[in-house]
């Protein structure tokens, strides 16, 4: 790149925010911008539009929340802790815990997990807390059982280590039996295709080279405001599998955009609503934001092969996937998404409205997300 990554050649964050403050910023959703760039050309679109809003609402397993319960009298240093029978991680200070979306209830199993617990928390429902301890001179209590709601907590912070994959593989099944996977139910003999990611609405695909996204980027998260912390786990931008780590105050989020979910015979997870405003700071960002569903491709993998590297059956665009049918081995196969496009559109529109109503300003990241990262497998070594 001749120009430095993140160059603000067309407009700066300060200029954009100044326009937002007087209600003069030109904001479009990613879908609107794609259409606008098609009609008027990317150069004109880049010159005229200040911000493009994006959105996605999909199952994101690497999600969870830090909670602080406050101290009981006498106090306890929890060794194990359960919330509605879902075990929370307790390798932290006395009354801090982390509940992950895929942790499952010890009584209800697949039917209730950390994702459902987070939905119950943001719904202000009562939660059962149970914990045990070995007791210390400073924390003498050995057992606690009580109830609380999110309003009783000192902090409830959503911190998701990996969200919003730029795009994701589509899934099918070449075996003779139904497979139940994190990509949903897959019928035998290539009976259907499921896919994830929101295509031309995808937050990280709309800034493909990560020129505007990094530590400190303010975003729509779970119905409230959140921030990008940095690259997510398994970030692999060279193949458009970039990811982000995000955080935000759970207390101001909504159960509409944080939904507990179960994939049959796979486990529990959390549907997360996430939207990023992309400031059109230079022409490369505009070109990326103008990418349409037919320009965003993915591979259909055979999940019937129980190996790390699954064979690719076909390469398709999101336009083909969204049409509802693709061709595999000369046969028409039905496709359907796992991410909700209805909610993804709503998120992009909501973010647009917040900016237009001057309720949301853009933040220049302190450090951009890397645009190159090796993605290493785990090699097994003999000890």
């Amino acid at each position: 790149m001749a120009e430095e990554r993140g160059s603000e050649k067309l407009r700066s964050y300060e200029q954009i925010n100044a326009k937002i403050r007087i209600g003069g910023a030109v904001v479009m959703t990613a879908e609107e911008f794609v259409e606008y760039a098609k009609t008027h050309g990317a150069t004109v679109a880049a010159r005229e539009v200040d911000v493009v809003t994006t959105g996605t609402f999909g199952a994101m397993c690497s999600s969870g929340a830090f909670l602080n319960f406050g101290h009981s009298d006498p106090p306890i240093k929890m060794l194990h802790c359960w919330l509605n029978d879902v075990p929370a991680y307790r390798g932290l200070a006395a009354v801090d815990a982390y509940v992950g979306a895929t942790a499952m209830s010890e009584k209800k199993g697949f039917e209730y997990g950390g994702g459902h617990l987070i939905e119950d928390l943001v719904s202000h429902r009562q939660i059962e807390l149970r914990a045990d301890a070995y007791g210390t001179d400073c924390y003498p209590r050995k057992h606690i059982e009580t109830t609380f709601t999110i309003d009783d907590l000192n902090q409830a912070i959503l911190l998701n280590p990996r969200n919003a994959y730029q795009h994701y593989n589509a899934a099918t099944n070449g075996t003779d039996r139904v497979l139940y996977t994190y990509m949903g139910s897959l019928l035998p003999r290539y009976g259907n295709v499921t896919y994830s990611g929101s295509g031309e609405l995808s937050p990280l695909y709309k800034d493909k080279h990560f020129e505007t996204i990094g530590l400190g980027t303010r975003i729509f998260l779970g119905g409230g405001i959140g921030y990008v912390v940095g690259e997510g786990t398994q970030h692999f931008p060279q193949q458009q599998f970039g990811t982000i780590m995000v955080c935000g105050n759970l207390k101001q989020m909504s159960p509409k955009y944080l939904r507990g979910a179960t994939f049959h015979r796979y486990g529990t997870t959390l549907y997360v609503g996430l939207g990023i405003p992309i400031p059109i700071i230079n022409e490369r960002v505009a070109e990326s934001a103008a990418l349409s569903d037919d320009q965003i491709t993915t591979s259909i993998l055979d999940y019937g092969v129980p190996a790390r590297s699954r064979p690719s059956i076909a390469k398709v665009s999101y336009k083909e996937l969204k049409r509802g049918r693709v061709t595999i081995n000369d046969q028409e196969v039905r496709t359907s998404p796992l991410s909700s496009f209805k909610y993804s559109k709503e998120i992009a529109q909501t973010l647009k409205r917040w900016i237009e109503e001057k309720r949301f300003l853009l933040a220049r990241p302190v450090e951009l997300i890397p645009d190159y990262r090796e993605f290493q497998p785990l090699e097994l070594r003999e000890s």
Partner: protein
Amino acid sequence: MSRPILADTIMKTGVPINILEAQMTPESGQMIVDVPVENRKLGEVVSAFETEGVTVQEIVSTITIDFDRCISCGACVSPCPVSAITQRADWNVEYDEKKCIRCKVCVEACPVRAITFS
């Protein structure tokens, strides 16, 4: 239980009856079948079963989608083997009861448990 009642009924009426679910014990049995005909022909199948001493009950129950819970994701759509569930252009989910064969694949596929079978 010693006679092949279902096979006899298919032969007698010429209707390709499809078994969706069957539970058999040495004393009795219960089956859910799809009878792909209507009106007089359906009456013929029902009376053929009844002549053999089978109690016939039409299953009116079906799947129910709770649209307050549904997030319109589409996880139930492509797994439906008969395209009884589809998504409209606005991605809202639609259900066509006439096509449904009550296989319950959608009930399992729904990640937010918005589909129930009753």
